[in-house]
């Protein structure tokens, strides 16, 4: 993992000192809220429905035990004993007090963390594959490139006041585990004729106008990444709309101007940008690469793992869903579910965080990841140690990764000031119902994603089943979309029709799932495959040609 140098440490210390003074000036009345608001947002401090919320960046979702323990400490010392991991692999604290936030930021700095650029119209936290460095199918670990982008984009003077926020994801495999094509820029590390470089995708996004990113450059030589990103950002900064917040993201810029026009503008700007880079960035990348050495994984006899699978059906069921193939045959990637039945998706208590930190230290090469699906990952666990990890997890060992109760849900109207309806209780209701029916292992791979407003933080557009909570004449109402796909074949889901009332949405989702079980072409056919084969009609029928249809409201 990248370690701060003196410059980084000084930079964070100075920013924290400035913010402490800004908080003091706000409290003593020297700053108005209008003056203070942009300053607090630059440091990740929002004001939500019930309290302030501090959003802490977790670059490309990578943590180590010291960082995770410090997050646990923050949760206990200044919050209510838990934190919420988000779909952008950040963590949010829901209850900080204004006076305490400077101390929280200083405590974060002790473990080389901060909250800079987790808000505002800047380049946000760079996300990546949560299996980076461990996945069997990757060309290389994409995180050094993500770190290079993080360093380049942090406090970049030209890109602090973009038309709108800007999100970048980096992956290095055919499989897309980071929803790369839903980002403003998605980068995929590729090989072309013996050379390594990037496929550059642009203009993806969710929100009120969901778009799948378009291919801007099929191959960008490795060394040209930063000048090319600058060319894209500079083009967007110049022609991106600032007259209408809802048309300000680069996806609209690309849509309105056309991909060819954007490409021409970027390519015209690119030589100027390239000339300004003297290769220092590549020297930096080499240093960053050196910090990201994949742990030296000793050969380990995996037979205890297979023996435990044979002996213990509970363990076997958990490994079927929560353990993924590692590039080293003696190791596995362990995903720890933050989706216990009835729990808030993505919430982790301080004790859960410490448990995961301990497991990473004992069994996981001190490496921890946050996934965009709001779970935690131990990317390098010897298969022989997986039974011990499972035993230590106990009640945290929910076997549901990739299943229907592994639901992405934004905080919704339980916390978020922007939300139009609740998300969390809907997720809890669906998970509890699935547990009651005991059908989710039979159902298999099914991704349900819930957003509490049109901004789509809960990724509902790319859920196999997507749920969008809206306010319809002062009542919570939930629209359903089907057929969304967050993988490499990224697809935006299609709306089924009128929405459902709060007390009708869980039964509606149950009808969809039971319909799938009735109609699927065998257990091998997933929900998404069945939907793609059958189309909307049978699912629509299950939703609306039902005795309770009177509850449905447009």
């Amino acid at each position, binding site marked *: 993992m990248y370690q701060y140098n003196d410059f980084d440490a000084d930079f964070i210390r100075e920013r924290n000192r400035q913010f402490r003074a800004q908080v003091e000036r706000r409290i003593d009345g020297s700053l108005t809220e209008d003056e203070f608001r942009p300053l607090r947002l630059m440091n990740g401090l929002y004001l939500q429905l*019930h309290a302030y919320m501090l959003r802490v960046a977790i670059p490309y979702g990578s943590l180590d035990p010291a960082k995770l323990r410090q997050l646990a400490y923050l949760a206990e010392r200044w919050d209510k004993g838990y934190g919420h991991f988000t779909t952008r692999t950040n963590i949010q604290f829901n209850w900080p007090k204004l006076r305490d936030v400077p101390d929280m930021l200083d405590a974060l700095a002790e473990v080389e963390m901060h909250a800079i650029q987790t808000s505002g119209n800047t380049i946000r936290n760079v996300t990546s594959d949560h299996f980076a460095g461990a996945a069997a199918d990757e060309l290389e670990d994409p995180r050094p490139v993500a770190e290079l982008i993080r360093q380049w984009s942090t406090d970049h003077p030209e890109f602090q006041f973009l038309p709108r926020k800007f999100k970048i994801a980096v992956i290095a495999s055919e499989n897309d585990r980071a929803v790369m094509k839903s980002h403003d820029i998605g980068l995929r590390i590729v090989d072309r004729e013996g050379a390594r470089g990037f496929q550059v995708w642009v203009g993806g996004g969710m929100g009120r106008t969901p778009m799948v990113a378009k291919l801007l450059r099929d191959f960008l030589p490795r060394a040209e990444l930063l000048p090319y990103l600058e060319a894209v950002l500079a083009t967007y900064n110049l022609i991106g709309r600032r007259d209408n917040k809802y048309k300000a993201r680069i996806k609209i810029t690309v849509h309105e101007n056309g991909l060819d026009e954007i490409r021409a503008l970027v390519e015209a700007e690119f030589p100027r940008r390239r000339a300004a880079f003297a290769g220092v960035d590549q020297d930096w990348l080499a240093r960053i690469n050196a910090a990201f050495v994949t742990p030296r994984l000793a050969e380990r006899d995996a037979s205890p793992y297979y023996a435990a699978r044979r002996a213990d059906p509970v363990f076997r069921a958990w490994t079927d869903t929560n353990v993924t193939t590692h590039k080293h045959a003696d190791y596995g990637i362990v995903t720890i579910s933050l989706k216990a039945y009835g729990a808030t998706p993505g919430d982790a208590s301080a004790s859960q965080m410490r448990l995961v930190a301990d497991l990473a230290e004992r069994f996981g090469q001190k490496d921890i990841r946050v996934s965009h699906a709001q779970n935690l990952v131990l990317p390098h666990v010897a298969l022989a140690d997986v039974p011990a990890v499972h035993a230590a997890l106990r009640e945290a060992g929910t076997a549901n990764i990739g299943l229907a109760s592994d639901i992405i849900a934004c905080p919704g109207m339980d916390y978020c000031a922007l939300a139009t309806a609740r998300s*969390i209780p809907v997720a809890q209701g669906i998970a509890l119902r699935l547990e009651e029916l005991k059908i989710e292992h039979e159902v298999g791979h099914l991704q349900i994603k819930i957003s509490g407003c049109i901004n789509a933080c809960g990724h509902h557009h790319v859920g196999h089943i997507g749920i969008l909570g809206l306010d319809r004449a002062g009542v919570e109402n939930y629209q359903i979309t089907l057929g969304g796909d967050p993988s490499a074949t990224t697809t935006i889901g299609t709306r089924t029709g009128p929405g459902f009332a709060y007390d009708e949405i869980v039964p509606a989702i149950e009808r969809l799932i039971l319909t799938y079980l009735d109609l699927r072409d065998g257990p091998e056919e997933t929900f998404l495959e069945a939907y793609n084969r059958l189309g909307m009609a049978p699912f629509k029928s299950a939703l609306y040609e039902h005795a309770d249809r009177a509850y449905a409201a447009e």
Partner: protein
Amino acid sequence: MPRDFNPKVITANALLEGDVVYLTIDDRWSRNLSDAEVLTDEADADLRLLQAQARASEVVGVYLTDVRTTSRGPEPIHFREDFRRRGPSNLFHGKQADTLRRA
């Protein structure tokens, strides 16, 4: 004929804690909606809003919100305001827990 004016209260978030607060008739900020001054006259409500907005060193995001008057005092009309009054529905945090602690 003048249009009906729906009763309103003034609400905001406390500057230091972020808590949801309501303006009382004696110009305090209370954590309890039941303590709020119910404004039934539009001109009066506008004036009280301006006065409340001037107290920027105490609160953030001051606005008027509709209520219905009941025997228990003002009650929120919109579900968003109900959550603001009570706290989140997934965890027993916020107002609901604070009320219990005070009891």
